[in-house]
């Protein structure tokens, strides 16, 4: 999970609270920016077809394929997945479906 941030700038942050000149005080704050709502296509993980080969994991440009403590992939992080479809193309076992976002 995200580590403690010194300044969390949100759409509600006022001019008195925001950082001078837009300086980004914390590294790794891309996590705060939910890009999931940019998605028009949505990848669906078909768990029964998945062989856990993990070829999908490194190609995701948004680190949206999550790996658990046992080193197994789990479901997508839909808060950040932009629906680019790269993982869909890469999966050798057709274990990722690609459907229109509702």
């Amino acid at each position, binding site marked *: 999970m995200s580590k403690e941030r010194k300044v969390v700038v949100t759409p509600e942050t*006022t001019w008195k609270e925001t950082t001078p*000149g837009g*300086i980004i005080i914390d590294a790794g704050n891309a996590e705060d920016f939910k890009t999931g709502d940019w998605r028009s296509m949505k990848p669906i993980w078909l768990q029964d077809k998945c062989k856990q080969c993990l070829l999908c994991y490194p190609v995701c440009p948004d680190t949206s394929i999550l790996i658990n403590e046992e080193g197994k992939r789990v479901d997508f992080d839909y808060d950040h997945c932009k629906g680019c479809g790269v993982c869909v193309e890469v999966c050798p076992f057709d274990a990722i479906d690609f459907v229109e976002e509702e």
Partner: protein
Amino acid sequence: MAIRDRLSGNEAVAVAMKQINPDVVAAFPITPSTEVPQYFSSFVSDGKVDTEFVPVESEHSAMSACIGAQAAGARTITATSANGLALMWEMLYIAASSRLPVTLAVVNRALSGPINIHNDHSDSMGARDSGWIQLYGETNQEAYDNLIQAIRIGEHPDVMLPVMCCYDGFITSHAVENIELVEDEKVKEFVGDYKPEHYLNNAANPVAMGPLDLQNHYFEHKRQQAEAMKNAKKVILEIAAEYEKLTGRKYGLFEEYKMDDAEVAVVVINSTAGTAKYVVDQLREKGVKAGLIKIRVYRPFPVEEIAAALSKCKAVAVMDKADSFNAAGGPLFTDITSALYGRVDGVKVINYIYGLGGRDVKTDDIEVVYNELLEIVKTGQVKSVYNYLGVRE
């Protein structure tokens, strides 16, 4: 004891830079500011400063290098004039909006075209809305004193804005005059070290600067920037008071010359104030209640203070050494009249555009202005608001 010397304006500014001993100077030569980096580079090669001197290929690069250095955590100074300032334009806004207190000596020169190397204020006046603090100096002494104070003003945590120190090309930059310098160690102590809260070369606290800033946040940053400019007025006066303790020389937002009982007054910027003060003295001898205001701080513009200072005058002439081409009046005129609006009623204000491209301004010219003001007081009539002084009709 202060050091008595005789220096040109450019030399005085270069000496101030030597005493400040900034971390970085990045500059590109352009008349009449060339001597500033030229003198300074000799201090660098003689080992008199610890500064990293970056000879760049253009003024755009000079300001870019200054921004990069200041963002990294370095105290940075540069100098330019006219078209050089124009080439910095894009980066001026970036320095100000990134809240980087770069210091810039602007040796005022007419901005082309037609091409001209002599003094007027069309260069820095064009940058008046770039978000930089603008200080103006009449003499080599003021150019020197402003530059030293600029460091403290810009770097103040309530301000964090870049500062332009402007003085007249050739008239002030090249004329040699007597000057009182502050001792090196006193300047060093006065400016102190640059200690920004956030800077790029800070491995313990990494930050990113200059990010994309869209509809959700840009406006808040601009509002914050506007507040910093409002804060600057108070800070400028605090630093001036501290500087006065050090040197005995008093600085304010503007200088009032024989304004106490003045009925007619001229408002002017930079070296022409010297000529105009002479005319004020002559008029005073004849019993005319003449006064003068010389603007030192143009950004932030001292709106309330100017309105108060002019409130007892009957007629005022604002002299602009730059035209706005707005078909209404010069930049200083626009600011003075809007300062008076709603604060002071009944003061008649006229505008003279003068001295463009280095056209000489003599005492006779200034007399014409005061005579016109006296005529306005006598008749109560303003014949013309937006006028030109010293142009062939």
